[in-house]
């Protein structure tokens, strides 16, 4: 009997646990540890953040789903990994903090044979003074955050209906953010909703981003073949904003936020500030702060984790300049090099380096988009890691399964107006996510599979994906037939 412990029940962790339960017979145990009681389909938080959906439409309780599937669920927060066990036993274990109703927090060890770290990101609002819910800006990173954002947005809409003029600032809240695609999707949806409410003429909408150019999206931009041209995503994205009269500020590191005022530094080293009535600014990501200890109880966190808190896996972490980055630097199996029974999936693994070219201001502030790990690759990595572990548990010989982001494509549908007849969405596919200039020397990607277009069809796809992926996550009959 083997026990596989999955830390995290987001897209990567939930996918991995679901497949493991399918591929391993009931003599083996699958345990999911997550501080959240609900599964959240994060891409739909954009709609939640504008009052177009409710929390119940984008999230559901995990316990009944896992109970039915035969997965043990521990609602707890993982705090430490002991990969060598303790002085008494060589069996590896994780320590989790569990809140017992009416009592204090209890620390519980959970032994494992295989461990998947799919803890996702820590939303590092603290990196920027005044950033985040409860301070001066809103976010759409979690259902709670998005619900608060919707309340603030709708309150301002009411004020505008009374004649007030308002300024909305949407984008990234730090020079080292990722997920610009989510901020972009939010800003175009917000603009669409302002029009739907009949108050667009009373609003200024500004997209504030750490990207070097619009359309970078943390993947160094892309080229798409369209209407007889090979067009950079910069042109595509700028056009989407221009058409909607959304202004943009690029190459910006937000360093401080006060009530109604954002202070930012540009890549040129200039200091500026901007007033706002509502700001939705995404935080930078970090690892969740897991620690690691050896058998003697000495801390070995730096052996398992990069300084940013993400877990080191089979990537090439050698420091080298942008010109020497290669697709082969990116991990393939997500196995921890020091402890082969530990894997990391989704956002939890440490990328070898960003994908976008790094830039630093004259003051030494790094200002560029960091590497994204969106839902599609996260789920694929979760499945592949689960397959590797299932093979090991069942004694199948052969190499581990692989899913490098330099060999994975991604489909991204960014809604830009939620209406089944008048809405539109930007549908993009890229292949591969990490450009490979050895295989595709000129553009780094296969232009046959790197596409982008805007239209109502994209919105239909976005709506279908919302229901289809929630159906899959609920593990309803036939869920395995739905691809990641």
């Amino acid at each position: 009997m083997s026990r596989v412990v999955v830390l995290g029940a987001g897209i990567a962790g939930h996918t991995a646990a679901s497949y493991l339960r399918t591929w391993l017979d009931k003599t083996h145990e699958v345990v999911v540890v997550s501080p959240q009681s609900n599964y959240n389909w994060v891409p739909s938080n954009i709609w939640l953040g504008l009052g177009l959906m409710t929390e119940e439409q984008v999230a559901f309780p995990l316990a009944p789903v896992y109970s039915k599937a035969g997965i043990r669920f521990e609602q707890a927060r993982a705090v430490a990994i002991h990969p060598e066990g303790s002085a008494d036993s060589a069996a590896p274990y994780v320590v989790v903090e569990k809140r017992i109703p009416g009592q204090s927090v209890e620390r519980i060890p959970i032994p494992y044979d295989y461990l998947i770290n799919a803890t996702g990101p820590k939303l590092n609002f603290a990196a920027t003074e005044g950033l985040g819910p409860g301070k001066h800006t809103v976010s759409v990173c979690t259902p709670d955050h998005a619900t608060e954002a919707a309340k603030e947005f709708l309150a301002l809409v009411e004020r505008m209906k009374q004649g007030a003029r308002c300024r909305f600032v949407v984008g990234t809240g730090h020079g080292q953010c990722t997920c610009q695609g989510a901020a972009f999707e939010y800003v175009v949806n917000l603009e669409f909703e302002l029009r739907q409410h009949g108050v667009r003429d009373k609003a200024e909408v500004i997209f504030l981003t750490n990207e070097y150019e619009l359309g970078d999206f943390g993947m160094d931009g892309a080229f798409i073949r369209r209407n007889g041209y090979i067009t950079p995503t910069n042109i595509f994205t700028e056009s989407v904003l221009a058409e909607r009269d959304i202004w943009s500020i690029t190459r910006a590191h937000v360093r401080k936020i006060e009530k109604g005022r954002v202070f930012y530094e540009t890549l040129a080293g200039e200091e500026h500030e901007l007033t706002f009535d509502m700001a939705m600014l995404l935080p930078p990501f970090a690892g969740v702060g897991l620690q690691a200890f050896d058998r003697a109880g000495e801390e070995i966190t730096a052996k398992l984790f990069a300084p940013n808190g993400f877990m080191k896996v089979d990537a090439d972490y050698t420091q080298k300049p942008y010109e020497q980055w290669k697709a082969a630097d990116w991990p393939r199996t997500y196995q921890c090099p020091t402890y082969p029974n530990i894997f990391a999936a989704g956002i939890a693994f440490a990328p070898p380096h960003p994908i976008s070219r790094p830039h630093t201001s004259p003051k030494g502030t790094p200002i560029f988009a960091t590497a994204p790990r969106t839902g599609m690759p996260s789920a694929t990595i979760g499945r592949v890691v689960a397959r590797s572990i299932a093979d090991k548990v069942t004694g199948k010989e052969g190499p581990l399964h692989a899913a490098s982001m330099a060999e994975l494509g991604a489909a991204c549908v960014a809604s830009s107006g939620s209406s089944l007849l008048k809405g539109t969405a930007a549908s993009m596919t890229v292949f591969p996510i990490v450009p490979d200039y050895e295989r595709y020397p000129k553009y780094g990607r296969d232009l046959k599979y790197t596409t982008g277009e805007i239209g109502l069809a994209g919105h239909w796809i976005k709506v279908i994906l919302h229901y289809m992926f929630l159906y899959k996550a609920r593990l309803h009959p036939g869920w395995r037939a739905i691809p990641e």
Partner: protein
Amino acid sequence: MSVQQVDGWKSGKESATVGEINTNVYATQPTRFTLFMRTFLPWQLWRFFSINLKMILLIGREKHLHK
């Protein structure tokens, strides 16, 4: 790129120091025909089929690579 000092220009708000804001006025803009086609149902049904096919081929290509 169109760069302007715009703070307080349109919203009438208290003026603040603002750097380069790109109002994107020189960006590529869609024609009326393009805008019409974006929500023209027969064309969008075809695009729906086409985009889905592209995504399925993309997934198929990944699976082929990871065998």
